């Protein structure tokens, strides 16, 4: 039986809502996909779009970005700023031809342990179907550099 492709998902979450929600999923012994690595931020407003790009560059196949629901931000308005930033960033990625479906954005509160588990499961399945993210690995140096630099492989 061939091995199933296990996507690597990186989750950028805010400490006060989504991280607590994920914690709740844990204490409730909810089973969910183990493909996700969680990175905890004080607030989604702190998440820089460069971090998402770096995650893909370093091997992530999919990304989850999640925080407090609008009006519930622990710092009052961080998630409002984040929302605008993501709208613009997504638009840029789409314009450049990047597959924006590899990034899932969501609001998960501290009480939504089940929502978190479902989010991770759904995202894992979606990315598994899409396959590994190879677009960055496929890019290589311009044509005659490639010929002259055969040491640049992986």
């Amino acid at each position, binding site marked *: 039986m061939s091995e199933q492709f296990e996507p690597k998902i990186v989750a950028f979450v805010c400490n006060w809502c989504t991280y607590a929600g994920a914690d709740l999923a844990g204490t409730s012994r909810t089973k969910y996909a183990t493909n996700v690595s969680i990175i905890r931020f004080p607030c989604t407003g702190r998440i820089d*779009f*460069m971090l998402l*790009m770096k995650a893909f*560059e370093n091997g992530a196949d999919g990304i989850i970005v999640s925080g407090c629901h*609008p*009006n519930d931000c622990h710092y009052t*308005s961080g998630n*409002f*700023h984040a*929302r*605008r*930033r*993501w*709208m*613009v*960033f*997504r*638009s*840029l*990625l*789409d*314009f*450049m*031809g*990047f*597959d*924006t479906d590899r990034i*899932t*954005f*969501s*609001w998960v509160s501290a009480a939504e342990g089940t929502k978190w588990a479902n*989010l991770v499961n759904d995202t894992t399945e979606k990315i598994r179907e899409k396959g590994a993210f190879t*677009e*960055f690995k496929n*890019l*290589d*140096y*311009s044509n005659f550099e490639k010929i002259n630099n055969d040491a640049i492989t992986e």
Partner: protein
Amino acid sequence: MTPLQNKVAELFDNGTISLMIGFKSTNNKLPVPFFFESTSGVEELIFTPECKGNLAVYLHKPEVKQAKKIGLLANIATLRSLVQLTSENQLSDIEKTVITINTQNEVVVFENMEELEAYVQANFPEYTEEDKKLLEQLNAMTRAERWQYWTDQFSACVKCYACRAVCPMCYCSSCTVECNQPQWIKVSSETTGNLEWHTTRAMHLAGRCINCGECGRICPVGIPVHLLTAQMNLDIEKEFGAKTGFSCTSGYALNTFKPGDKEQFIK
């Protein structure tokens, strides 16, 4: 002397300006930015359609800021840059006199920023036909075709940072590319790293760029980088109603918000 040259000579004579930034001709017929501090330079001053540069960028130069009173020759793009820079509080330490030549070929010296802003709003430019066509073509492509297009373009980028250097809105004294702990933007020029750089540049300029198109015009390898920010500005105007380089008091779309901002993609 042309009316423009006469006017600038007058401004020097009555002490309104101590440094003039304009254009002059050179041997190879491409105009260069021209800086002069007295009427003796006035006869070389020109302002032809070939003078495409956006001179607002020089207002950030330490050597220019040292001058007490700066005169600046401005086309419509430069005027918009000045409006945008004013809304970002970047020009409050500079005493400037801004001069343009209007559509009736008259020399106009703006009394103050209100007058300048009114002129900009009355003459607000559209995207050029060429850019509109390119944006249409790109938006009509499939996502995969766009990816192919942009990665092909970025593979040629040599990281000369001319696009950053020529932009009046890129005035950070310590740019993100200069940070090496950690090295956010790779120094080496290869497609992924180049993509990182152009993404960062587009995001840092989204909602601030005034579409002068200089970055794309001067790119030594011919990448139309101005289209990235042009598309961003169109999207930002559509989503948030914000127009860049339009008002001296408008905020920046990405450091404000409305609780009612709507999107379709957050679960």
